[in-house]
């Protein structure tokens, strides 16, 4: 599969630098601290996963980076540098130039972004003409090529169809084609396969992976599914209550997780390799109310290792090894962790 010349990028180094980013919503019930002081960076071509339970701020974080937020009652803070340019202070008009052309986004439900009354061909061609100034014939040619790239059978036929005539998997492919059209340097994919069946999910994840590699495009993959990020990312952020609680290269996160929340998330998934009727380890309770998150560590009300320190002092992100940060007073492997493991009967004493 070849790619469009216009769409291939060859840069290296830092693409996005996010610093102390916060997005709060003023609501009648109080201020919702949806994203609360997030710092990380993303390199060109790097694939980042963002995981956590629903409501922990994954979607708002990715929208805050793109600058796709509602205008009313939003309190924003912090900085987003895209190739050195500050996005948070940029005018809407300048940001619009960046959307599509530099940063593109796909969602769980493609129908929310596809125009139901416009033919697929026209929808795909429009951004090309706006962003790249393509002529009608040229745009048509690129669109056909894109549809082939995303594995759509009979692309000519699709140009004349409407979104509702297509299956869920096909619509997600069209969304990806639209996102790729102007050759963005980063693709934000928010739960892109959550609504799809497992065989179609596998096809779409393969497609995203292939396109990222061929186009040297960075990826921000937001999902609640640890399985999805395990196979398709280089680095993972675990979010809880609007904050990063652990960030690590993918392999490190799974083999040396430090944060009890990461551990708990991982343990609660049923594993295919375990025999049936294996008792699942659960996390009690639910993520906190983001209007009044608990003092100290926000995970402390649910954490089996929590002490008075945890309920009073908020743990800072600290380094386990270069590139691996976590926020916890008693991480996996600590004395306190061992003690509690023994008392819970998860591990025998003496080692």
């Amino acid at each position: 599969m070849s790619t469009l010349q216009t769409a291939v990028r060859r840069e290296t180094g830092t693409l996005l630098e996010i610093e102390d980013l916060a997005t709060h919503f003023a609501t009648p019930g109080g201020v919702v601290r949806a994203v609360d002081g997030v710092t990380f960076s993303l390199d060109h071509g790097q694939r980042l996963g963002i995981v956590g339970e629903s409501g922990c701020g994954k979607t708002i974080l990715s929208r805050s980076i793109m600058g796709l937020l509602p205008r009313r009652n939003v309190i924003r803070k912090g900085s987003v540098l895209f190739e050195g340019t500050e996005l948070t202070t940029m005018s809407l008009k300048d940001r619009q130039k960046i959307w599509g052309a530099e940063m593109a986004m796909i969602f769980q439900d493609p129908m929310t972004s596809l125009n139901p009354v416009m033919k697929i061909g026209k929808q795909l061609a429009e951004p090309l003409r706006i962003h790249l100034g393509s002529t009608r014939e040229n745009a048509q040619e690129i669109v056909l090529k894109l549809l082939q790239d995303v594995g759509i059978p009979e692309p000519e036929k699709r140009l004349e169809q409407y979104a509702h005539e297509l299956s869920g998997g096909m619509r997600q492919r069209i969304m990806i084609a639209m996102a790729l059209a102007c050759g963005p340097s980063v693709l934000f994919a928010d739960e892109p396969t959550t609504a799809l069946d497992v065989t179609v999910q596998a096809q779409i994840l393969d497609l995203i992976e292939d396109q990222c590699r061929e186009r040297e495009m960075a990826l921000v993959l937001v999902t609640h599914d640890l399985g999805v990020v395990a196979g398709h990312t280089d680095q993972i952020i675990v979010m809880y209550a609007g904050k990063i609680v652990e960030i690590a290269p993918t392999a490190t996160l799974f083999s040396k997780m430090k944060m009890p929340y990461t551990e708990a998330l991982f343990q609660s998934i049923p594993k295919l390799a375990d025999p049936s009727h294996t008792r699942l380890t659960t996390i009690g309770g639910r993520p906190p109310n983001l209007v009044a998150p608990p003092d100290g560590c926000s995970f402390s009300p649910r954490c089996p290792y929590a002490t008075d320190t945890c309920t009073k002092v908020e743990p800072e992100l600290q380094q386990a090894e270069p590139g691996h940060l976590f926020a916890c007073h008693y991480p996996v492997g600590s004395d306190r962790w061992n003690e509690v493991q023994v008392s819970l009967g998860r591990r025998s004493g003496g080692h």
Partner: protein
Amino acid sequence: MAGTGHAHLRGDALLSVRDLVVEFPVGRTGLKVNAVSGISFDAQKGETLGVVGESGCGKSTTGRAIMQIPRPKSGEVTFDGQDLMQADTETIRRLRTNIQMIFQDPISSLNPRRSVRDIVLEPLNIWKVGTKEERLARVNKVLEDVGIDPAVAADRRPYQFSGGQCQRISIARALVLEPKMIICDEPVSALDVSVQAQVLNLLEDLKRDYSLTLMFIAHDLAVVKNISDRVAVMYLGKMCEIAPSDDLYRAPAHHYTNVLLSSIPVADPTVTVATQRVQGEPPSPVLPPAGCRFNPRCPAATDRCRTEEPEIREVAPNHFVACHHPIHGGEAPVSVRSTGS
């Protein structure tokens, strides 16, 4: 896949379904949706039978057809020795005290205007079970059994609870008449993994404490493996394979089962994702393919598969498959063999 035949059935079942057919008309076109096309299975007393397959393959329709909603086109459904297809409406109504259903979306299946107590009490009132005090005591007991504190929760309304808690409440309502069987249709699909694990553990406990037989419908294969004793795999209105869970996942014999298992993303980056993929998406059940319904997507399809429907047969003890060319001595995809620590 299109499994027909009865080789896999045994005698001593609580529920037995034979050659079940459910069709829906497509508008006034004269065409029909072949939602369920002749499937047969049993649920033994005390077992959990899992049913998996992609959306639209007929799982929910099968569950509802057992309850006779709507009445299936043909086939036999026998529950506890009673033939439900021939039963009158009153008998069916009574049956619902013995088979209950719970659904994916607990919030919308609970009446928003009623208190939790009234919601759970209602079935007892309808069936005039015991005295008022006995009914209230029963309600408190089931609420406690599902992990809801009646003192705190009984006067609240469903919207005041999270999705996981609402699922517990709908389980309490299903349990209150002490049914013999519960059909669970995607009961954890809308829940976060942490809550999903709580509800799965709860169902295991309740099954034991209430001596239940469960039919557990879901599209998540890992979830189904965890809770089921046996698993049936459906595709496009047909049953492809049915086997004890551990056997099915260790050595899938049907090509579709194999593909499903290989498609699951595994939470372990050291597992190289298997490359067994199928093309496209399931075809429409309005005009299903002839022969084996999986043949257009099957990597092993031959001319025979395109013309002749495979009969279900035993390929290993209690392991049944409807395929002309089953995977022999099949090995589980890599995803099933190893996971993270």
